[in-house]
């Protein structure tokens, strides 16, 4: 089989970089909107913070899977 293009070296780190794009955007939106919500309604701080951290944790999972998979499945 003839190769058209090949990537060598630490491909896992490229994969991690790709997997961090989406969660990066997502976490930015979550905290941006969360801070805005707190600024508009400071008395709802507790509820907003809790939901902010919940959303952050759900978005973050994707980047973390991208980080762990190269270790699990080798180079």
């Amino acid at each position, binding site marked *: 089989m003839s190769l058209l293009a090949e990537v060598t070296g630490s491909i896992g780190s490229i994969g991690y970089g790709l997997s961090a794009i989406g969660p990066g955007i997502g976490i930015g939106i979550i905290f941006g909107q969360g801070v805005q919500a707190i600024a508009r309604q400071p008395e709802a701080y507790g*509820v907003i913070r*809790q939901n902010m951290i919940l959303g952050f*944790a759900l978005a973050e999972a994707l980047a973390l*899977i991208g*980080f762990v998979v190269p*270790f699990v499945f080798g180079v």
Partner: protein
Amino acid sequence: MITETVLASGGLDCHLVPEGCGFPAPGAEIFVFDPVWSPTLFGLTFNITKPAILLLLAAVVVAGFFMYAFRRPALVPRGAQNVGELGYVFVRDGIARDTLGKDGDAFVPFLFTFFFFVWIVNFFGIVPFLQMPATSRFAIPVAFAAIVYLLWVPLGIRRQGFGPFMRSMTMPPDVPKAMYVLLIPIEFVSNLVVRPFTHAVRLFANMFAGHLLIATFSIATWYLLSPSIIGIIGSAASFVVSIALTAFELLIQALQAYVFTLLTAVYIGSALHAEH
């Protein structure tokens, strides 16, 4: 162990000679420990390693502290009881009641145990000489997530009945009928299959990444050290970063324990009440 990685890379001070010996970046091998004790029970050999000992130690620390704090509960709390009550109120009001409402009080002991146990296990990652978050071994968060999964799925089936529970898990309301062809498989996989997996991976990967980062900069502190200006600057910068990362880890450890417990409460909540 950091020292083992340093030793495994061909001696402690070959970086000080002009040829050098490269920078042995730490990998997954720093999480593997030799068994301290290998007892055989019923024909099975159990390898007791450092993470297992740290788990037991965490259990002793958490149980010991709260038994001490609440040994003679007074109406007006003093000393350790103050700290214990602060932790209890945080879990009860901040996690259980906020997510589960008035049903939450029944689950406070479960959530409370999880929060403090996970936090202390994580916290051992930056305690000098212990320096290993046991949760960075995948089996341990998997066991935690399995306990949570085996709680909320039977709970949901018992409270709602099998059919309504499965409907609440797989059929989000107010969606056009035709969309269910697409949505039911997606919701089934995301709520009942991937959920426990991400629950475990989130805790594991955070602790794994944090420990690896601290190890990388600690090793860099030693390996960049050489009798030259660049070497001293590089080594000092790595040292400062490793201290800063330790402080950052302190935050992440508490945050991940909180997130783990919060998600546990959310999952229990989805078992108690159908989404509407």
